């Protein structure tokens, strides 16, 4: 933000005191900023004013005499004289409330909003003590479900237009509207069309009465028995949240307005994910192999409950045995992207500094190499979307995977002067809001990016027509470009994406936002939970000496990634595998390799919160603390650090991840020297090149978090951070005219562990379907709903088909991790792309 100049400042007199408003600022906001609160219902700082409720009426003299005016619709003008406490203002407030209460039922005792309700509060503060209306109130059927998670009680609605504005203005899902007229006006959905928005929970949070309530919180608690703490939701955006609990159970998560990240919004998947935390299938005690009588004494077939001492000892002796038999390379660690940044550091130190293995990977073949991600110059979300900039999207559909970033992008596209160029293989939920949809064919995105950057836009490249290439080049010209980059499809290997990155680095003004899956993936890559890297965005070669001095030892050579580890397990050179909240059986793109690899390992040690399929096959299971059950720091895609706070105790004897690493180290006769998340952070701040100057106090104190690396040169004496070097470009795979090129993407609701353990979300995961362009479908004789056989070089699966005009010609889209058919069977990690043939059955 630029410093205000004199022209930006508007003097306004509020209740006899002269205050300074900003030019264009609404009177209600200017007053609030200067300590004068004007009651309101419809006004919301993140939405356009509508002046629906009239609660904000105040007496304003803008030069033509005092009159009542809605302060939420009134931009400040110089010399305005405002009285928010005059008799006339009070009478107006009193009258508006009396009117609102004509029809508002008095069922506060059974209303989920009771106790934290703006209508209650403002009636107490500004309203009439008694009503003069004795007539019957209007009646509607008590709560009707308008979506899978939201109930609407129309009797309580005060028609403030917040929810409907949110749906159309913010989320772009205009599925709820005002209907009927006069006193019969009501909010409702279209007949037979639910309010199926990924963001519906936000309307519950902003409804100023109890008209909209959330099913997962319905009647669970009342505001006065909730305790709360501000924290960060561990998604790649690092959304700021308020976590609320009662009787040691998390019962609600609300968005907190942070300018830098989520603006107060959350997706439903994150908002309601707390249901999984108190699920009765949480792991609550360590498990080891034992006999069917529950004795942990032999290597039986069952997983039996045991003590931490026994489980940690078994894990440690498995590691020691592997160390002796096959050296450190026979041990591997997969996962860790969902831990706190501190725990990631402690696990990296355990793996690389104690055990001495570099076979560590937080990504399961569906990410980008840390050497690329951590080397790219980054931008902040707000700067990326500042007016006059351009954004390139080369990621999963943000609407499906990164909801709050989608809302920011949508806002910027609608309100701000930004251009959006979409290079992802299929159109995202932004729809027509993107400036140019240059949907590169999988495998060709490097060439498409190269053509745009070099201005070679006269021939078709990678399925993108010259017109689109030209439009894309024009949309990026003379603008600060931010490339939001991830892995839009696991059926396309990372190579072409890295080539596209390499091309974009040549632009004059460019920065990146690496948007990869899994909550704290940025932290994991920063902390070296990836082969060849050490904490603080430095490589083994560059930082080896530095960390050897601090830790005693570091691996000499770069280790294996997840695919490499699983292959090493199959050929017997890797014998002990640690899964840190990872489920390769369900999550690794090559399911067959994952199951062969896990089966071949002598010992699998799983640290997790649920018994996923991989955990169920492990030999030692250590229960971990989940979200809100431990404290630490989160790192988002910008490199923004924000605090994660503990609100409840972990279930049973589950422990924090960092503590599990420390105990395991102890059992291996090593002392990590870490006693708390704070001491882990102190070590990170002391050692990591990228984290110099980011103390735990600073992170905790900053409302919007702290972006690393810090601009000062506190880390000047530390090893250099990794820098980007373009690899040899990946060969382009020629198009097979008879096949469709596969895109395997992700959707919000899938068979993922958390979603499936939330009662309100589990059933929202659809069956897998293959979508293709209607012309491709017609050419194949496929109609909507037909069961088709999809065959790749590897395998074939059967699933229903759906023609979809959003899918470009020559491509087929199958979502990952959906019931019905597993698209992973088709994917071969050894080929850059996967071509499939579709046949009707």
């Amino acid at each position, binding site marked *: 933000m630029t410093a205000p100049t004199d022209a930006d400042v508007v003097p306004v007199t509020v209740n006899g005191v002269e205050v300074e408003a900003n030019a264009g600022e609404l009177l209600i906001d200017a007053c609030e900023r200067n300590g004068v609160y004007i009651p309101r219902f419809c006004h919301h700082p993140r939405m356009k004013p509508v002046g629906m409720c009239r609660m904000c009426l105040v007496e304003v003299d803008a030069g033509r005499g005092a009159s009542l005016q809605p302060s939420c619709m009134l931009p400040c003008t110089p010399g305005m004289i405002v009285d928010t406490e005059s008799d006339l203002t009070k009478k107006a407030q009193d009258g508006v409330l009396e009117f609102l209460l004509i029809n508002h039922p008095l069922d506060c005792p*059974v209303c989920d909003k009771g106790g934290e309700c703006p209508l209650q509060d403002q009636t107490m503060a500004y309203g009439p003590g008694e009503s003069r209306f004795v007539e019957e109130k209007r009646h509607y059927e008590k709560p009707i479900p308008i979506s899978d998670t939201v109930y609407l009680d129309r009797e309580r609605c005060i028609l403030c237009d917040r929810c409907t504005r949110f749906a159309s203005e913010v989320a772009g899902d205009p599925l709820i509207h005002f209907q009927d007229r006069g006193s019969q006006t009501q909010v409702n959905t279209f007949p037979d069309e639910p309010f199926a928005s990924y963001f519906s929970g936000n309307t519950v949070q902003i409804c100023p009465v109890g008209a909209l309530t959330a099913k997962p919180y*319905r009647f669970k608690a009342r505001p006065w028995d909730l305790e709360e703490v501000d924290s960060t939701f561990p998604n790649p955006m690092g959304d700021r949240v308020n976590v609320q609990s009662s009787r040691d159970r998390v019962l609600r998560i609300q968005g907190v307005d942070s300018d830098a990240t989520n603006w107060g919004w959350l997706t439903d998947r994150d908002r309601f994910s707390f249901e999984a935390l108190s699920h009765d299938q949480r792991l609550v005690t360590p498990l080891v192999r034992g006999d069917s009588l529950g004795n942990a004494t032999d290597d039986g077939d069952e997983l039996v409950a045991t003590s931490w001492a026994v489980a940690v000892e078994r894990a440690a002796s498995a590691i020691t045995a592997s160390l002796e038999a096959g050296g450190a390379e026979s041990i591997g660690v997969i996962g860790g992207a969902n831990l706190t940044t501190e725990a990631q550091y402690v696990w990296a130190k355990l793996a690389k500094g104690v055990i001495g293995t570099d076979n560590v990977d937080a990504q399961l073949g569906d990410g980008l190499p840390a050497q690329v991600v951590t080397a790219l110059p980054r931008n902040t979300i707000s700067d990326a979307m500042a007016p006059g900039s351009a954004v390139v999207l080369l990621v999963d559909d943000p609407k499906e995977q990164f909801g709050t970033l989608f809302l920011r992008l949508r806002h910027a596209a609608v309100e701000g002067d930004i251009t959006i160029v979409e290079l992802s293989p299929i159109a995202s939920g932004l729809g027509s809001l993107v400036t140019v949809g240059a949907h590169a064919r999988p495998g060709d995105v490097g060439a498409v990016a190269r053509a745009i950057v070099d201005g070679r836009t006269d021939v078709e490249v990678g399925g993108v027509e010259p017109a689109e290439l030209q439009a894309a080049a024009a949309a990026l010209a003379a603008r600060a470009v931010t490339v939001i980059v991830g892995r839009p499809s696991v059926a396309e290997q990372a190579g072409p994406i890295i080539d596209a990155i390499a091309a974009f680095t040549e632009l004059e003004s460019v920065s990146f936002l690496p948007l990869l899956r899994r909550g704290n993936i940025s932290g994991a890559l920063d902390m070296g939970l990836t082969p060849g890297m050490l904490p603080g965005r430095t490589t083994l070669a560059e930082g080896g000496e530095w960390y050897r001095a601090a830790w005693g030892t570091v691996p000499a050579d770069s280790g294996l990634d997840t695919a490499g580890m699983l292959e090493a397990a199959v050929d017997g050179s890797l014998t002990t595998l640690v899964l840190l909240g990872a489920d390769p059986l369900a999550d690794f793109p090559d399911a067959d390799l994952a199951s062969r690899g896990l089966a071949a390992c002598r010992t699998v040690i799983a640290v997790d919160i649920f018994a996923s399929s991989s955990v169920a096959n492990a030999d030692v299971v250590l229960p971990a603390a989940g979200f809100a059950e431990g404290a630490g720091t989160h790192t988002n895609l910008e490199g923004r650090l924000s605090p994660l706070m503990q609100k409840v105790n972990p279930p049973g004897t589950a422990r924090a991840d960092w503590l599990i690493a420390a105990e395991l180290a102890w059992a291996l006769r090593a002392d990590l020297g870490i006693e708390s998340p704070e001491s882990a952070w102190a070590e990170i701040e002391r050692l990591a090149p990228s984290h110099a100057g980011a103390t735990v106090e600073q992170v905790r104190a900053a409302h919007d978090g702290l972006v690393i690396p810090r601009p000062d040169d506190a880390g000047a004496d530390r090893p250099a951070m990794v820098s980007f070097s373009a690899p040899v470009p990946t060969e382009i795979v020629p198009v097979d005219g008879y096949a469709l090129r596969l895109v395997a993407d992700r959707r919000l609701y899938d068979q993922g562990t958390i979603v499936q353990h939330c009662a309100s979300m589990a059933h929202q995961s659809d069956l897998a379907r293959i979508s293709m362009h209607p012309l491709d479908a017609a050419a194949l004789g496929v109609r909507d709903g037909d069961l088709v056989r999809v065959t790749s070089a590897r395998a074939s699966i059967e699933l229903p088909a759906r023609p979809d005009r959003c899918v470009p010609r020559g491509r087929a889209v199958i979502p990952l991790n959906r019931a019905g058919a597993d698209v992973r069977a088709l994917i071969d990690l050894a080929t850059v792309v996967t071509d499939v043939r579709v046949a009707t059955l």
Partner: protein
Amino acid sequence: MGLLDSVRGFGLTFGKLFDERVTTEYPAEKREKSERLHGRHVLNRYEDGMEKCIGCELCAGVCPANCIYVRGQDNPADDPVSPGERFGFVYEINYLRCIHCDLCVEACPTEAITESKLFEFSFTSRDDAIYTKDELLVGDDGKPQQLPWEDWRDGEDQHTSAWMRATAPSGDASYEGRVAWAGELGYGTRDPEVGQSGGDGD
């Protein structure tokens, strides 16, 4: 001090000797309890047997001793427990902590919770001291249930309901003794009040 002083002193003692006795042989014999004594609670029901408690937790919120634990739940549509959307699913009062201040009774919007005149219990475990909803709920005759460790005498289970015991809702004295609505199991029906001001015109 004169000789007669001590005789004069005993005068009071001798005089009282022939007055009516005020000491009772408790517990063999009990004194009449005052109408509004704050004893242990009951959860009342409507005349049709439905529970009055709607699980709103207002009583739990107001309780200065923090001894009430309530959780609400959606009323099953086919077999509702209370009228309306929500019912008290869990209801517990811990009598090791209750100070019988009756603030919960005043807070209750449905007059579900009231206090009986009983304070004489001799439980021997913490579990017994925590009264559950099943124990607090009045029986099918609208009278408090007698628990094994409670010393009930004839008539002590009378006048425990809201109908008899309402104080002054909203702190407005003109409401004293008047109950906002009808149908108390065991006590019959009463006309609901009209209007909201409590004035003569109602």
